[in-house]
């Protein structure tokens, strides 16, 4: 073959090792990348949680002096940025990465090296963002970075420090990771499904991943442009958001929220997908209305593009625009409600087992109902004039993002960690985690509803005694420490289970989807043979048939693949080789950004590093071509 005849420089020889520390830098295995995402995102979760505790200590009483104004502003900005971009999104990615190929019967994602690249860009972006604490101050303009406060050049002094430059550049880096991921999962889900797995047989979690990937694909470029315009205003003196030059401060808001609203569906749909898997497994019933849940997810994906200005009701858009967005916002509650009713329908008539994953999924449903309802109240524009920028809003989004997304992600963690590690987590500790977290969460965020209605604004580093907000703020602070305690319980459980947990086996939950048909942990090639799919909930149908009354009856011969097959000679399944180049390509990005801030020749060097990475990536040998 012509290919083999060309002498290959050793630079391009692919590494072969799949064990050892170095192998983690070159891995392209979706399962290992999923673990990397999960561990990294969890570390950021702890950082974001500490930031939250710092805020809560400062707000525990009126006129607190624990944090000064500048520090407080940096901490609340980083708390938001961390939780959204460095925790919920990558935790969702962890699940996408680990599970999608397993759920669709594939051996890996469509672009394994692009997958690794996404992870490394994420980590380096997070480090870049956090390095700002040591380099003149972290971003301090809020995660939403409204112009012109955020876009003025540092010398103008509207905000102290250079943190918002780190914001503009850091989020760009993270955006690259998300975009690459989106392309990867769209192609994987559309192209790599096992034979017989039509789109209407795909697990709901996979469907939600597909919708989220399309949302990312189209939303990330919008924030990229917004951030370029913001960054250029700060670095190069462009006037996109400069009122003196006629720039429109609201342009930033429109661009930001055009991204920002789809972003919140990006944050919640994966958790909804998880809940749609866990509830059926622990109710021993299929998801009530698969098509309804799938189509409502697609509907939310579309409708999510038409509500963005509900974040801007008080900016003076006028009654016509406000009405239009009030209506679109109210109606997006309909597909959301469809999901909730379908989840209820799943449990209804089932045989519910309250294992820890189930507790967290039920917690999701319960908390999301509250968050969803408070969201509908925001759509009532005149009332939003009282709610906007108060703690009422903070209550809403924590109910949907913490009570919703985080609870959902923990549900997924307890459900799927046995598959990843081969060990069960302790049920007792899991239940303690759940109850502590539920109580702490509600204690922290429920009072925020009435604090907001009592006028307490967001982003205030302190508040006066006369406002009458002190009592409930104190209660909230106590609640936040209870949440912290619950996280400690989880960490203890995790560490304990890794060495002492009961062996999980392939299918500890008697579940319904294909990932439970292979050993725990799975072999590196996932499936001995690519499965042929004949049903939705394929695994369930291999295990059970339905009698005349629709009740499951065990099938005698059907079962999960035999576990010992992993030890037999399946070494002829060739998986993609590891590669250095995704890491190298990722490495250049923060170098470019540091260069833009400090020393522009470094940006050239960074660009060259990334180019070298990209060249190596495209020129190195691939097993199949």
């Amino acid at each position, binding site marked *: 073959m012509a290919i083999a005849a060309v002498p290959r420089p050793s630079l391009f020889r692919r590494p072969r090792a799949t064990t050892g520390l170095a192998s983690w830098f070159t891995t392209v295995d979706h399962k290992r990348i999923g673990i990397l995402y999960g561990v990294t995102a969890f570390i950021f979760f702890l950082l974001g949680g500490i930031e939250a505790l710092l805020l809560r200590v400062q707000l525990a009483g009126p006129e607190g002096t624990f944090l000064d*104004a*500048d520090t407080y*502003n940096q901490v609340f900005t980083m708390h938001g940025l961390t939780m959204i971009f460095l925790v919920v999104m990558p935790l969702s990615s962890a699940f996408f990465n680990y599970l999608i190929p397993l759920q669709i019967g594939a051996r890996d994602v469509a672009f394994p090296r692009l997958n690794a690249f996404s992870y490394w860009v994420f980590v380096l972006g997070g480090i870049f963002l956090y390095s700002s604490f040591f380099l003149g101050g972290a971003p301090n303009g809020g995660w939403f970075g*409204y112009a*012109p*406060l955020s876009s003025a050049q540092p010398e103008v002094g*509207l905000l*102290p420090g250079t943190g918002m430059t780190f914001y503009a550049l850091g989020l760009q880096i993270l955006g690259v990771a998300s975009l690459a991921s989106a392309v990867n999962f769209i192609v994987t889900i559309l192209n790599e499904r096992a034979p017989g797995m039509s789109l209407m047989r795909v697990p709901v979690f996979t469907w939600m991943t597909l919708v989220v990937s399309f949302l990312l694909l189209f939303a990330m470029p919008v924030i990229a442009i917004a951030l370029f315009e913001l960054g250029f205003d700060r670095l190069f003196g462009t006037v996109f958001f400069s*009122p003196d030059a006629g720039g429109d*401060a609201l342009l930033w808001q429109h661009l930001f929220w055009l991204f920002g609203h789809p972003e919140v569906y990006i944050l919640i749909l994966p958790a909804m997908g998880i809940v749609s898997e866990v509830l059926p497994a622990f109710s*021993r019933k299929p998801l009530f*209305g698969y098509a*309804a849940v799938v189509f409502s997810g697609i509907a939310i994906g579309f409708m999510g593009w038409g509500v963005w200005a509900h974040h801007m009701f*008080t900016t*003076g858009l006028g*009654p016509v625009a406000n*009405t239009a967005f*009030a*209506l679109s916002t*109210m*109606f997006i509650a*309909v597909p959301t409600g*469809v999901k*909730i*009713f*379908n989840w*209820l*329908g799943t*449990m*209804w*008539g089932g*045989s519910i087992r309250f294992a820890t994953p189930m507790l967290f999924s039920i917690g999701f449903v*319960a908390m999301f109902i509250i968050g969803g*309802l408070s969201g509908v*109240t925001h759509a*009532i*524009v*005149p009332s*939003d*004039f*009282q709610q*906007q*920028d108060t703690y009422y809003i903070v209550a809403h989004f924590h109910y949907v993002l913490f009570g919703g997304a985080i609870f959902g992600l923990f549900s997924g963690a307890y459900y799927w960690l046995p598959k990843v590690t081969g060990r069960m987590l302790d049920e007792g500790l899991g239940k303690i985690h759940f109850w502590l977290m539920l109580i702490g969460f509600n204690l922290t965020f429920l009072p925020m*509803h*009435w604090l907001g*209605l*009592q*006028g307490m*604004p*967001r982003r*205030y*580093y*302190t*508040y006066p005694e006369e*406002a*009458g907000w002190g*009592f*409930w703020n104190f209660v909230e602070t106590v609640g936040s420490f209870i949440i912290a305690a619950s996280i400690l319980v989880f960490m203890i459980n995790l560490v304990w289970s890794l060495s002492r947990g009961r062996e999980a086996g392939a299918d500890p939950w008697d579940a319904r989807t294909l990932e439970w048909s292979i050993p725990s942990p799975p072999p590196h090639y996932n499936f001995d043979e690519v499965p042929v799919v004949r049903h939705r909930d394929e695994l369930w149908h291999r295990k059970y048939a339905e009698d005349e*009354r629709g*009740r499951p009856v065990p099938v005698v011969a059907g079962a999960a693949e035999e576990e010992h097959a992993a030890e037999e000679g399946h070494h002829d399944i060739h998986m993609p080789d590891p590669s250095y180049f995704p890491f190298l390509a990722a490495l250049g990005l923060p170098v470019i950004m540091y260069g833009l801030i400090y020393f522009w020749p470094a940006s050239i060097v960074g660009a060259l590093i990334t180019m070298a990475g990209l060249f190596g990536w495209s020129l190195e040998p691939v097993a199949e071509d």
Partner: protein
Amino acid sequence: MVILGLLLAACTGQLPYNSLDPAGPVARKQADLYWLVFWIAAGVFVLVEGLLVYAMIRFRRRSADDTPRQIHGNTRLEIMWTILPALLLAGVAVPTVGTIFDLATRPEGEVLEVNVTGNQWWWEVEYPDLGLITANEVHVPAGRPVAINLTSRDVIHSFSVPRLAGKQDLVPGRTNTIYMEAARPGTYLGLCKEYCGLSHANMRFRVIAQEPTEFDEWVEAQREEAAVPPSGSLEAEGLEYFSTGQCIGCHTVRGVETAVGRVGPDLTHLAARGTFAGAIFDLNEENLTRWLEDAPAVKPGAKMPSGLRDMGLTEDQIEAMVAYLLSLE
């Protein structure tokens, strides 16, 4: 829960920023609409959470070989729980849209015009038809509608008096308008509700609603030029330092020729205001002294330089200037 919270809070003291204790027609319409939607939402909450709790109890697994019927959905239910919430929302939309347009419509009658310009971190308040400028206080005649035109000189701020009306943003380069009316005389507290930098939490203001005659008296007093202190007094000494020092670069005192700066608040009738520095300090000798000594130390990021460190003032000079400022009724 909300009611419980409010009751508890009411027991512990006043709630000056409470949007559910409206003191004017705009806030009342907003509160009424909120309560309508709240009770509907509460009903939905009880229903859905109730079903959830019921399902958890009724359908919990009783034995290891509990095998429930494998239901694959019900189209009629899907249609029903799509249509019914949509209808409910459509019902809620009607008063919502009505109120949106109602609140956006200029009120009938003699509307008082006020122009408020936001600055980091204080409010310039101008009465264009009455020819007066003040800061951090909006006086209005009780029972008369007011149109407040909002803009900003620097970043986005937001004008919010919860007991009278919700908030509207002050966006540089645009003018937004908020209408409100105080039903009865009283003092209503307001604050900035759009993150605007270091001292966002220190940008408050007060709306003081007065009987119409008292309001007219206030207008008359505000229109006059600044009080001239008797010569030889401490206040006169303070005026001397004020009018020849750096103060005039930022502040206006009508009657003092050199003092025409507009970077900081108009001080012509400072002492008639009960608070200062964005309504965060009571106006008294002690607070004014600390402010002149080192404003940034007591209000993070304050643009006013420190008297002692940056402007080279002595304690005596400050004492005189404080006396002068306190004389500006």
